[in-house]
């Protein structure tokens, strides 16, 4: 079982340039996440929740405040943090096992250990038998399973999930939520899930961070003291869901004027900007 990390976010702020002027997208975010905890972050689009994840993974830099993982300030990406995006982002020219293996490209394991780890994680996400399939042969849900395996194969301390099931149909989404819960319990690592699906947030989260936009702030943190696996039909589940939805009720959470995130850097800007 991987070591689970403590994540401390203190007075985090982030500015984006909007027509030459810096505009805050995140302001005064403070959050402490315990090892092995599952935290859901909900908010309307434009509240900066994806930006928050991108800061934690290290794809965005230049922030104010502190993001500290196990006592170390986060600078850039690292193999101890994994991420699953909304799209699976698999390499279309590689098979399932080769895609999962990408996560181990820079690990110091022997080839035999790698092979074992890849197979274990393909089994973990329930894709035994699809090792040599290409991404175009997979359904959306299967693609996300591969993406989860790729993110976990390194045994990261924290797994970030950026609306991972947002593009899937309702049945597949429910099923993958159960699967994610099983994987979380099995691996025992810290997970942070960004979603706009309140039911998903309640089903999976130990705590739910409700965010509001312009600038992105934490509005409230809701505890979910329900035993797992949770019963979506129970009264307590419905009450928490209703409580969270109430936070969206006043209309202030709906972002009509959100700050657009600049385009991600290209290969040239990242590695070849000499």
């Amino acid at each position: 079982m991987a070591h689970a990390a403590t994540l401390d976010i203190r007075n985090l702020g982030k500015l984006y340039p909007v027509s030459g002027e810096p505009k805050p997208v995140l302001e005064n975010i403070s959050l402490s996440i315990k090892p092995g905890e599952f935290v859901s972050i909900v908010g309307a689009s434009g509240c900066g929740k994806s930006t928050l994840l991108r800061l934690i993974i290290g794809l965005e830099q230049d922030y104010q405040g502190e993001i500290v993982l196990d006592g170390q300030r986060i600078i850039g990406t690292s193999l101890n943090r994994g991420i699953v995006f909304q799209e699976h982002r698999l390499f279309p020219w590689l098979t399932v096992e080769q895609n999962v293996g990408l996560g181990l490209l820079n690990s110091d394991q022997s080839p035999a250990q790698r092979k074992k780890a890849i197979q274990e994680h393909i089994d973990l996400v329930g894709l035994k038998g699809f090792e040599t399939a290409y991404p175009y042969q997979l359904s959306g849900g299967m693609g996300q399973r591969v993406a989860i395996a790729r993110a976990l194969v390194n045994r990261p301390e924290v797994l970030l999930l950026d609306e991972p099931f947002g593009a899937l149909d309702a049945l597949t989404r429910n099923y993958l939520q159960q699967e994610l819960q099983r994987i979380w319990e099995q691996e025992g690592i810290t997970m942070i899930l960004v979603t706009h699906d309140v039911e998903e947030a309640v089903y999976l989260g130990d705590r739910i961070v409700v965010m509001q936009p312009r600038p992105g702030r934490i509005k409230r943190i809701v505890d979910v003291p329900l035993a797992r696996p949770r019963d979506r039909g129970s009264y307590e589940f419905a009450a928490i869901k209703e409580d969270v939805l109430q936070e969206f009720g006043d209309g202030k959470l709906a972002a009509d004027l959100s700050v657009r995130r600049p385009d991600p850097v290209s290969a040239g800007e990242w590695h070849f900007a000499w």
Partner: protein
Amino acid sequence: MTTPPRYLHPAAIPPALRGWVLPVLIVFLWWAGYASGRITSPLFVSPGKVVDSALELIRTGTLWQQLGASLARDLAGFAAGALAGLTLGVLLGLSRLAENIFNPTLNAFKQVSIFAWVPLISLWFGLGDLAKVAFIGLAAFWPAFINTLSGVRGVPKELVEVARVLGFGRLQLVRRVILPAALPAIFSGIYLALIYAWLATLGSEYLLTAGVGIGNLLTDGQEQFRMDNVLLGVILVGLIGFGFTALAGGLERYLTRWQRR
């Protein structure tokens, strides 16, 4: 009114064979025109005459010599031009600095028709094989360069982010992300370069006339009033071009078989 018999209906020909209908018809009309005995122009030769002169050229070895010379300079020019285009395309696609320095000049050169280079090439390299290979290389360079550059530029940023998250180094990024992602575009460039090189081979043999080659078979045939050799040359050029296209297409399908079809 009676319905025509089933075998006369166009659908009676299997789809794979329908492409052969027109060539067969043309050869038949050509032969029929000869067999009717009504066309007496010296510019008209029978299909049989073309086959005869092909056999004659094969027997004396002239055909292989000309074919070999043309193909050798075609492939030499293609290899040099495509390799240069590929290298420069990758370099400029990766490095902002290299792009800033080279691209304006290359863009200006791109506007010059390759035929405008002929006088300069013949002054520098003469009329021999070196000049021809230089001309063919220039023709093959542009499609390879332009397609490679746009392929490398068009690598999805989402996949580059995955590479960042997984901690890829510079070489890993090129080998594992950029080159495979750009491969379909690079391949269309190589494919076009192959076709352009063959067109330029004929062009070089016309414009820089010294030596042997399929182009010389054509020009000599024209000068000696040998319609059979001229027609044979045209047919050979077409068949070889067709062969290159089929070869490149097959290789492309194999190398990019991961693409959704």
